[in-house]
């Protein structure tokens, strides 16, 4: 019998965020990019003033719209941070504390800013 010396991991929480973000991005990512980045700016298939200030504000002030935006930004950020951090490892780039801070710290910062901004928009 052998006992392996195990290092407990905090990966599960990161992985859950990664997974949730990945699923959200897989389901809605392409259409979000299409709508906000192509269709509306080009006025193609959707009217160009779909995102006029009052409409955008209304959307962000509605609880559902607010929740959707928060979920997308926060979870996308953690998804991307987690994958990019692992890619650093895959490429043999440094994965020490500073890389970790850059990736996950970045995601945390994005989350914080998003929540504050969305909160500031009020209901």
């Amino acid at each position: 019998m052998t006992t392996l010396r195990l290092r407990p991991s905090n990966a599960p929480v990161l992985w859950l965020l990664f997974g949730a973000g990945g699923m959200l991005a897989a389901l809605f990512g392409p259409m979000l990019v299409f709508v906000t980045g192509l269709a509306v700016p080009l006025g193609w298939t959707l009217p160009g003033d779909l995102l006029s200030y009052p409409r955008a504000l209304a959307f962000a002030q509605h609880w559902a719209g607010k929740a959707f935006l928060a979920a997308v930004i926060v979870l996308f950020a953690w998804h991307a941070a987690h994958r990019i951090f692992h890619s650093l490892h895959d490429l043999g780039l440094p994965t020490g504390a500073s890389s970790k801070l850059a990736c996950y710290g970045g995601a945390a910062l994005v989350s914080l800013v998003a929540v504050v901004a969305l909160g500031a928009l009020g209901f």
Partner: protein
Amino acid sequence: MAGWWRRNPYFVWYMVREVTAVAVAVYTLVLLAGVVCLASGEAAWNGWLSAMRSPVSIAIHAALLVGMVSHAWSWFDIMPKTMPLLFVGGRPVAASAITRAGLAAAVVAAAALFALAWALRP
């Protein structure tokens, strides 16, 4: 191990899949900027809107769209690996069926999102 992923086409595809995270990251920042602008008032928001209309932004978003679609495709491609064996009517469900179900769900979600945008149009 240096450059290992170039040694085998399978690994190259893996790397492509991982790189889709960059698309997700960039788009997250774009959205974040939008939300911050929105919170900063109408002028800032209009600035964001016009930036979105610039040719550079259009080109970037075209690229992001490719990245997002690849992400969605590869996400559902590996989904069967992350699930326990499923049985329907006593027979195990094939991996490809799970992938197809996932992709179908993505199409439905995208359509719903588009429909929502359509419904909200002025």
